[in-house]
């Protein structure tokens, strides 16, 4: 696509020439992010919220500035942003912190068959503890949510609708604003697993209409070890802390504790301080390109890949075949060739793709496959990465005698 900048020089790891197509699992990190963390650790590091000395004030300011940066990025308020270990912890905090408090036998939790295990297993655990029941919105043939089925399943016993913002296995982007509208009419809370969405598309939490949102830094050019739980203030107020410890209390006696104000209540212990600085730099980097540009780039590569892949003998594409409401994730299989063999062969061609169930085993069963090979794009990818993939897939076809 013309106009999109060549950013590869910012990513030292790409110097080896690797065609990195596994950003859906985790993205690479630009030097701007690495340097921001390094600089902070060398000049301004201390624990936060605890010290009355200058270094600690500087560190606290940097940490809270990162929170503000995330809030601005999402169109949210400062105090609605909770730093966690990652999307998984954010979703567990919601499921346990909100779910254990508000779900009762007979209540229903509605999720989808295409959720990542992170937005499924915690709800299974909470359903078992509370006696609530779990139900799943099915998908259509082309890998989109079946919205008619959603409406049929939605009733006033549904207390929470937990839905992915973008499928990590199929790329599908469900219409969350519409789903949230219906869910709210039915009186349910809406939880969005935005682990794939936030890194790739502009998200304004007010427009999205969700009550809770979860994502990870490491999939959006930031460091590992940190993620975000966003909640509308009234939703966060309904949540109990998932962990107890330092910094999250107002007062503690031997037998009782009262909680600090939100968001500190949900940040027990020493938070990922250096990582918050890294996430801040990652968001600056993303915004300097522009989220609209990034999404357009993803879509462009997706369109090119969908076309070129469909020319390769034996290749099956799972999920939507066009770029409408879909991100830069493509799951494929090849007749008579297992996804792991594809990944090994592609690796020998310098192409890094993931093969497996993508932490979405129920979806794999739905698709009738044990595993897929998955291409996922990000800011540093180019059409050459797709060409290398196609070359590798043709070689796989030869080796395995396909086509």
């Amino acid at each position: 696509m013309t106009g999109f900048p060549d950013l590869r020089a910012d990513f030292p790891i790409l110097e080896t020439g690797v065609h990195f197509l596994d950003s859906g699992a985790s993205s690479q990190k630009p030097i701007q992010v690495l340097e921001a963390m390094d600089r902070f650790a060398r000049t301004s590091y201390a624990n936060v919220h605890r010290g009355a000395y200058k270094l600690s004030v500087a560190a606290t300011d940097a940490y809270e500035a990162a929170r503000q940066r995330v809030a601005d990025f999402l169109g949210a308020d400062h105090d609605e942003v909770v730093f966690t270990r990652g999307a998984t912890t954010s979703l567990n905090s919601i499921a346990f912190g909100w779910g254990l408090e508000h779900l009762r036998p007979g209540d229903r939790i509605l999720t989808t068959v295409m959720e990542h295990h992170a937005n499924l297993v915690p709800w299974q655990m909470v359903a078992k503890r509370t006696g609530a029941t779990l139900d799943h919105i099915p998908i259509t043939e082309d890998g989109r949510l079946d919205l008619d089925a959603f409406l049929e399943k939605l009733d006033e016993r549904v207390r929470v609708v937990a839905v992915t913002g973008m499928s990590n296995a199929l790329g599908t982007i469900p219409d969350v604003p519409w789903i949230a509208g219906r869910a709210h009419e039915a009186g349910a809370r809406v939880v969005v697993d935005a682990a794939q969405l936030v890194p790739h598309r502009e998200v304004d939490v007010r427009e999205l209409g969700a009550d809770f949102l979860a994502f990870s830094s490491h999939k959006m050019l930031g460091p590992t070890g940190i993620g975000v739980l966003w909640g509308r203030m009234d939703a966060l107020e309904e949540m109990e802390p998932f962990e107890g410890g330092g910094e999250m209390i107002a007062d503690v006696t031997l037998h009782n504790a009262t909680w600090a104000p939100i968001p500190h209540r949900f940040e027990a212990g020493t938070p990922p301080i250096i990582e918050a600085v890294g996430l801040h730099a990652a968001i600056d980097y993303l915004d300097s390109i522009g989220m609209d540009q990034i999404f357009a780039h993803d879509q462009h590569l997706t369109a090119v890949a969908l076309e070129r892949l469909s020319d390769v003998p034996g290749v099956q594409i799972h999920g939507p075949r066009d770029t409408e409401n879909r991100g830069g994730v493509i799951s494929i299989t090849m007749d008579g060739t297992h996804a792991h063999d594809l990944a090994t062969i592609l690796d020998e061609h310098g192409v890094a793709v993931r093969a497996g169930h993508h932490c979405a085993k129920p979806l794999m069963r739905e698709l009738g496959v044990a595993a897929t090979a998955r291409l996922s794009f990000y800011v540093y990818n180019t059409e050459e990465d797709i060409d290398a993939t196609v070359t590798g897939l043709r070689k796989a076809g030869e080796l395995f005698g396909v086509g």
Partner: protein
Amino acid sequence: MALEELYREVILDHYRNPRNRGRLDEPEATAEGMNPLCGDEIHIDLRFEDGKVSAIAVEGQGCSISQASASMMSEAIKGKTREEISDLIARFRGMMSLEGGTDPGIDPDRPGASLGDMEALQGVRQYPVRIKCAALGWTVLQDALQS
């Protein structure tokens, strides 16, 4: 590129035409296992006669390496005693540079210890992440023998 070394014809043949496929009625030993990281699965049933494997059936799904390796393994252990099988397991592990392996050299003269088709799996050693695939069937076999 070592791909041709990895995907030797004999491996692809076992992958496409797995030997001893299926289940046994009333197996005397049975086990199943999976590799949680990739989801590959193997199920093994065994029967013995005079202390030797008289029948074996393998079921499973997964990549060419895991399925071909299990198929080859099923051929290699037929008619063997438990002791001979233990020896085979150790020799296989040795070939794959896995813990508990012995004598990585392939010694065709040693009675009952030839790895036969299995030797084609040597190419896997260059792909450390795939060694687990090759080993799955053997691990399940060990479980079956202890069952």
